């Protein structure tokens, strides 16, 4: 015995449609949560990541004992949270003696764990510790420039994976049009050694230069930290192939009132609304129009005068 359940509310219906799988995807939402024990540094890191991704991030503040991303059974809670909050990237922070200031960044495909990268955080500097001109502060939700420097990102497997994951995390929404005046932040990641990456977040200052292109100036603002890659898990081949599939044919948006003919080529239809002949202002001021105006004005003046008389008499 099955029953068909449809939402009774327009709001619920729209929410469900937002969460449905789409042909072209917009940005992924991030889930930020903690493990059994966290250090002060780690708390700072997590809250700053949350601030940077304010629009598309969910922060859980309770500790979760039963999440162990790298173990086979420890991912069920993560998948459940991902399903409920509709988040496809998660950042899991935990602190232990063996792995101090540990951060696991992972991605989901269809709300199942796709791949994981485990990094340790060192030399963390928070937003408050930087002094800069407040006017230059990047606004929340602006699309950032991302720069990767270092041959390590090309040669070392783990760093390559980390690069991909960081790109996904820091990217933000995928947009078609962008307003050039609104570009004000940049992330710079440099590979210092074969397992260390220096990540920093800067504000952009555009300076006048001779050409159309302004000169960029980076001012360090916001977090900066060293990421030491510890472990990582790549997705298995089948899953990777499936996740990388893209829809080749985009449904062409139908352009209205345009049709094509073999003989005449493209034909367009233009619909003109009815002319309102009475309301249109006459182009040449005909004499008759002027006179009518004068007479109408006189009439109004008379009426006003008569009204005044009436009021005075009353």
């Amino acid at each position, binding site marked *: 015995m099955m029953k068909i359940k449809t939402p009774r509310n327009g709001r619920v219906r729209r929410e469900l449609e937002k969460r449905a799988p789409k042909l072209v995807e917009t940005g992924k939402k991030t889930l930020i949560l903690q493990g059994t024990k966290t250090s002060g540094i780690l708390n700072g890191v997590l809250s700053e990541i949350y601030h940077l991704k304010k629009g598309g991030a969910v922060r859980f503040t309770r500790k979760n004992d039963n999440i162990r991303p790298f173990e086979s059974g420890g991912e069920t809670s993560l998948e459940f949270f991902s399903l409920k909050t509709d988040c496809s990237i998660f950042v899991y922070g935990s602190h232990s003696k063996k792995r101090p200031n540990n951060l696991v960044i992972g991605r989901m495909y269809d709300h199942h764990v796709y791949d994981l990268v485990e990094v340790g955080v060192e030399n963390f500097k928070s937003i408050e510790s930087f002094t800069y001109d407040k006017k230059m502060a990047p606004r929340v939700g602006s699309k950032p420039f*991302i720069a990767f420097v270092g041959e390590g990102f090309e040669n070392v497997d783990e760093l390559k994976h980390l690069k991909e994951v960081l790109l*996904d995390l820091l990217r933000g929404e995928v947009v078609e049009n962008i*307003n*050039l005046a609104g570009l004000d932040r940049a992330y*710079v990641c440099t590979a210092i050694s074969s397992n260390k990456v*220096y990540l920093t977040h800067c504000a952009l200052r555009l300076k006048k230069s001779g050409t159309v*292109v302004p000169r960029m100036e980076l001012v360090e603002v916001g977090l900066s930290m060293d990421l030491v890659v510890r472990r990582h898990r790549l997705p298995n081949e089948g899953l990777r192939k499936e996740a990388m*599939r893209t829809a080749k044919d985009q449904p062409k948006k139908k352009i209205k009132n345009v049709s094509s003919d073999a003989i005449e080529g493209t034909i367009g239809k233009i619909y003109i609304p009815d002319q309102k002949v009475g309301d249109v202002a006459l182009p040449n001021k005909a004499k008759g129009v002027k006179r009518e105006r004068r007479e109408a004005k006189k009439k109004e003046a008379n009426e006003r005068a008569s009204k005044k008389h009436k009021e005075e008499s009353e």
Partner: protein
Amino acid sequence: METQKPFQVDVGNLLAFNPFHNFPSLPTSRDELVKGCLEEGTKLIQAVADSLFNLPSTEDVDGPLVKLPPPTTKLPREKHLPKPKPPTKWEEFAKKKGIQKRKKDKVLWDEQTGTWKRRFGYDRVNDDKDIPIIEAKMTDEPGEDPFAKRQDDKKKRVEKQEKNRLQNLKQAAKLGALPSHVQLAATALPITGTQAPPKKVTKDELGNVAGMAATSTASGGKFDRKLLGEKPAKKQGKHRKFLPVVEGSGIGSREKEQTENVLNKLISKHSHEILNVGKAVTMYNVKKEKKARNRKNQEGKSSSTSNKLKPKKQLHKKAAKKGPESSKKRMAK
């Protein structure tokens, strides 16, 4: 720090990658490292900005708007590609037969009232309730109500349509292409045998059954491990006390007492102990008061209901009557 010209620039993502750079020796101080990184970063971002600002831009209220090219770095999707909906039973049939979809008008001409009425909804064309007369046909049975029959037919049609819709959705769900706003929920477990739905059990009933199950072990459920918060079993049913096998035959012998009690009840030797005088007196008084009340009521209304109740009560009272009357006689004597 050497850099070669070609950076990898992905304008769609605002990304720039320099794969040829490496630090030959790590700079000693942190500040120098930071400065070096920022310099490299600046170069890369300048490269991105070069290509970005050279794109054709349109003027907008806030500033120049640029249409970004699609990103070149491929990243994995977050959800699977949406699967196309499978054709419904009707759609397959229509394709096979070559039936085309016709566009339907919103309003139709109603002959009866002579106006344009909507196709479905509140004030519609061909509504069942607007039919004044149905002509009888030769095939009609005499006792049948044609209006009710029309309504039943409509109900059946609607049910059939719902069933077909459910089947189509089930088929779509099997292929993973259920529309996002629809959910299929199971209303009840599959029932075998008779089609009666399972009755809901109350808390007390459940408690009784649980108690029965718990005590149906060899040791009466006494040594079973109890769960947290489980209350001890309530005493139910008769608890018989069995006399010891060996016992003396003096004053305290319980067997003698037991048999004596039984005999006394049978013979009613101490009959005054059997009778509860106070209770008997109150019963008599209550009966008297009721009689007086009934006589008063009879003047006003007919006490047929009280008459109905009376015979049953009198049966009980006759048995007890012997008691108070006999006692009264004795007391009078």
